[in-house]
């Protein structure tokens, strides 16, 4: 019982701390952010299972790490110099189709690692790469040579087509009113659109929304026969 309550308290604290730290924590971690994420999980786990340790002994270090993280992030935002010290600088690993050995060594990156990353990005030849930059979060950004770049609509001189922001309107039978008004559709017109697609009741809809082409899309919940509407 006590352990469960302590776990809930610590879990809530970690969630709050991770939310305050920002979305970057979940996706692309900087080295200092990764260190903090690992430490927080460890710090929360110990007092969770050991009821002999006062909860405060787990909470104070977590809050101290949050303090350190916000300070470093704030410094990174405010000063370019601080940013380069805290997060490092992006480094060019391939320059005009040629591997920069010096930078490769500095980053302790092997040629195999580099080739692997290029292959993941569908590039098999180094000479096809104009620039490959190792970002501060460890990801490799690749700029292929112009002749090897994927063809764009612009290159084919295709007429320009405006893309709009896709909006979810109904999820699991529930209307998202904020998105509905954003899309400029009234409930009555929504019902009419659904009726034209053979859906009479909103609660039947599993998902409905407007896609990037501006078309309305709706799918009903799975029926016993697995039927659906599009």
């Amino acid at each position: 019982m006590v352990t469960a309550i302590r776990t809930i308290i610590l879990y809530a604290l970690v969630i709050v701390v991770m939310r305050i730290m920002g979305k970057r924590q979940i996706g692309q971690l900087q080295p200092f952010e990764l260190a903090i994420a690992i430490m927080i999980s460890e710090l929360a786990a110990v007092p969770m299972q050991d009821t002999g340790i006062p909860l405060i002994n787990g909470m104070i270090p977590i809050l101290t790490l949050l303090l350190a993280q916000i300070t470093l992030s704030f410094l990174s935002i405010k000063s370019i110099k601080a940013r380069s010290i805290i997060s490092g600088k992006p480094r060019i690993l391939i320059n005009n189709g040629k591997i920069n050995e010096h930078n490769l060594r500095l980053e302790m990156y092997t040629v195999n690692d580099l080739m692997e990353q290029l292959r993941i990005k569908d590039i098999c030849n180094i000479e096809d790469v104009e620039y490959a930059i190792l970002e501060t979060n460890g990801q490799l950004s690749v700029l292929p040579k112009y002749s090897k770049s994927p063809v764009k609509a612009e290159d084919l001189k295709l007429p320009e087509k405006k893309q709009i922001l896709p909006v979810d309107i109904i999820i699991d039978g529930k209307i998202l009113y904020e998105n509905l008004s954003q899309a400029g559709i009234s409930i009555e017109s929504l019902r009419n659109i659904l009726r034209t697609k053979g859906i009479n009741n909103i609660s039947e809809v599993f998902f409905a929304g407007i896609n990037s082409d501006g078309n309305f899309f709706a799918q009903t919940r799975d029926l016993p026969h697995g039927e659906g509407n599009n």
Partner: protein
Amino acid sequence: MRYGFTVKVIISLLILIFLTFGVGLYALITIRRTCAELYNEVDKAEKFILQENWIKAKEQSTLINNKWQKIRKEWAMLIDHREIDKMHESMMRMAAYIKLEEDDDALVECAVLKELIKHIADKDSPVIQNIF
């Protein structure tokens, strides 16, 4: 807009500093105060035992026990419960020896108790030895 963001971050940082260091400081002050109180009381009990004044020693033992019951609750939020259990065992042993008027054992237990109290008071002090 940018200025507002800076102010918000600085305020959040100040709140966090206040929270972390405030709680830490509260814990430190509470532990030191209660340790000093307990140490003095055990010291008094030790003196009564040395004078073989068992009536006073028993009164002192009851007083220590009452104080300990209150301090124990306060400590539960701040100190490792294993340390508290060790103190409690020693406290109970000392009370029993005083009750039985066993001067040697009671004196040994007083010395142990004083050492435990000193250890708890020193354990969380912000000194170089504790940091490294």
